[in-house]
């Protein structure tokens, strides 16, 4: 199969890459662009470890084709910090010990940021349902929920 050129914006930077027609956005990000922060935990959209945003919408990049990124704006975990300044979610995840092995963390952070952009003051239940598509096997989610709420409070200026 012949590769197709794709022009896109990733974390604010213009980006061009070639990919096969059946190649996922996740594979393109990881294997062609070196953005390995998004992880493949299942390849079927069940675990959320590959979460990125595509034109502002939270998606599993394993369920998106690379060619669908044409003309789109993509953000990944690599674009979350502002230079060397961590996003409040990133900081609170460290401070609240909300990660153990850390492999689900990039996806959960991307998903949580997407939530707080829509809903700056979610209830615990809203956080839990929003993150229900992001599996974490280490933490039991308790500290993740607390970290998201602490970051949300800080971002609201509370």
């Amino acid at each position, binding site marked *: 199969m012949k590769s197709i050129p794709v022009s896109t914006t990733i974390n604010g930077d213009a980006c061009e890459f070639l990919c096969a027609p059946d190649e996922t956005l996740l594979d393109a990000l990881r294997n062609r662009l070196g953005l*390995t922060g998004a992880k493949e*935990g299942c390849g079927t959209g069940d675990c959320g470890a590959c979460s990125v945003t595509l034109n502002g919408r939270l998606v599993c990049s394993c369920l998106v084709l690379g060619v669908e990124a044409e003309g789109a704006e993509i953000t990944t975990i690599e674009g979350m910090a502002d230079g060397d300044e961590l996003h409040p979610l990133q900081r609170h995840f*460290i401070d609240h*010990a909300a990660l153990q092995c*850390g*492999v689900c963390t990039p996806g959960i952070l991307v998903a949580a940021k997407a939530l707080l952009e829509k809903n700056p003051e979610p209830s615990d239940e809203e956080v839990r349902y929003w*993150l229900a598509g*992001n599996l974490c*096997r280490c933490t039991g989610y308790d500290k993740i929920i607390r970290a998201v709420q602490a970051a949300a409070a800080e971002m609201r200026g509370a």
Partner: protein
Amino acid sequence: MSLDEYRKREFKQVGQRVRRPDGVDKVTGRAMYGADATAPGMLVGRILRSPHAHARIRGIDTSAAEALKGVKAVLTGADLPAQEDDFIRDVQDNCMARDKALYDGHAVAAVAAVDAATARAALKLIKVDYEVLPHVTDVDVAIKPGAPVVQKGRSLENVPAGMSENVTSHCEFGHGDPAAGFARADHVVERHFRTAATHQGYIEPHAALASVTSDGKAELWCCTQGQFFVRTLCAAIMGMEASQLRVTASEIGGGFGGKTTVFIEPVALALSRKAGRPVKIVMTRDEVFRATGPTVHTSTDVKIGMTKDGRITAAEAHLRYSGGAFPCGTVDMGAQAAFAAYDLEHVRTYGWNVLTNRPKEAAYRAPGAPQSIYAVESVVDELCQHFGLDPIDVRLKNAARKGTKSSYGPTFPDIGLIATLEAAKKHPHYSAPLQPGQGRGISCGFWFNFGGNSCVSLNINTDGTVGVTEGNPDIGGSRASISLMAAEELGIEYDRVRTIVADTSSLGYNDVTDGSRVTFAVGLATIKAAREAVRVMCGRAAKIWGIDAEAVEWKDGAAVPAGPNAGKFPPMSLAEIAAVSFETGGPIAGHHEVNVDGAGVSFGVHIVDVEVDKETGQTTVLRYTVFQDAGKAVHPSYVEGQMQGGAVQGIGWALNEEYIYGADGRLQNPGFLDYRVPVASDLPMIDTVILEIPNPGHPYGVRGVGETGIVPPLAAISNAVSRSAGIRLSELPMSPPRVLKALGG
């Protein structure tokens, strides 16, 4: 070795909730996990797996695959050497079948090609000539004489004659005369239980990148709980010397016991050797479920007698565990753990391991214990209900304590069970009111905890900072804990210490990150290494001052003249001694290598409130509290994390998770959609209460905390369901269909 006994002390660093050193890498996506590595000229490796539960491999024709453009190597079991050692042969045969495919998903061939599409196409060109054989996937069927035999000739000498050849080992533990004890009981309950196989469910699939060069050297990068053990296994399978194979553990995306062995690592190495190029293999989730992990699935009978005032008079358990198609010793640990929480005069457990056509069991958090303790704690609870007794009071009345002859033999030293039960009893959760339809359950849990081989090298840098090199993959914050213990012992701040995990060429042998051993055993080696460095630093200060080394003490991070010289010289800090180390004899370091013993057993108690929806059969967990003895919590947040994570894995086991095999012997649910692990919206907060009953075998009192937490949820939830819905289930998971069936719906 003599145990380094616990001494009470005031901690300055240990017990602080510091930031972990790998935190920023892990929240920015920079941390390198198994699948994130690349190498120049790297090929993609993929594995062909058996679609049959049991089949003789009459032949494999790889010629068409080899002829495909872009294919650089094809591998079958015939390419790997014959092994004399049973253990190594089983590991190797599990990585690549030789004569028979023993389960659905068993590897039968592998290819390395220039890209994934070519590798996939090559797999389709491999022709395997299978003779399909009768299969058996259920332990209760496999144990019967006449069942299809998975492997012949694998029974140990301890298996009684006349049993199915699938029975590979038998064990028996206990003391006293149960028959006499049952005769003294006011009531005896005997029940049959079954638990499904579950998977560790780590989010990161197995990944390995191997590079073998023509001079016989090899590099292996993989996600593992133990790079040294990977080296041992791969060197044996590859016929290599250990020194020629360097294994580097990547960051690890969860393991829980499932990454304590090898699956794809020897395959990647063998493909790389054949192709003359680096080869990377990353498993799909389907492969993870079909060919790695799971736990044993079990069938048990438990019989317990009790007097009407709640004293257990006798207890007996028969445990039948199957660890899949290869012999497995997990039932030994289940049998020893079953009644560990109780002080019993008459107790006996019998265990049998049985082969089935399922994947080879891998350890999963407290291997063997959740299944047997689930059965025991369910029967104890039923007896409490029968007599109308409080379940914590009954456990307190029968609790193992210092001086108890344990059900597995040894007499217990200081243990924390009674304190843990008392903490649970007085906690507000235990007395909180319940709404109609809600039920509360409790259960005890237990794990042995291990020590093991540990090497630590601790270097004092000239700028006064400290580097600690250890050899155990950090699976949940252990680098922070190790740094805390080094800082404590040296009397410096945590952020002056950085701990890294070494590859197999940089340090002596370290046992796998398992058995809840790392904070205990590697921590002990770290403390000893720090003491060695302190001895050197005191010596340097003594030379500078011109006094005897024995006349120098280490206090608050500095050498201080002591005895008759006290006050004669100002203290010299670690940084001041380090700054002149080149002038005073050279770089300063401490190191310690030891096979640690003296791990302290760990008990936990869980309280859970549930509500069963009688329309749907769904059980909702409303409130959950974990009580566990940590000995000493070095980093309390990560201790809580272990307790919470273990509890939630147990909740999944209790309510949803199970390997489902069809009549065709194939796994029906090899994906996260159908093998449902708990998600955030299933759960409440998991409250934790850490108890600290010091382990006498560790200088800071540390016990392991990783494993015990998965044990109590199984029975605690079953007991709560019983009190919520008035039905006592005896099979896990208590999935909605099973609950509905029990409700008569």
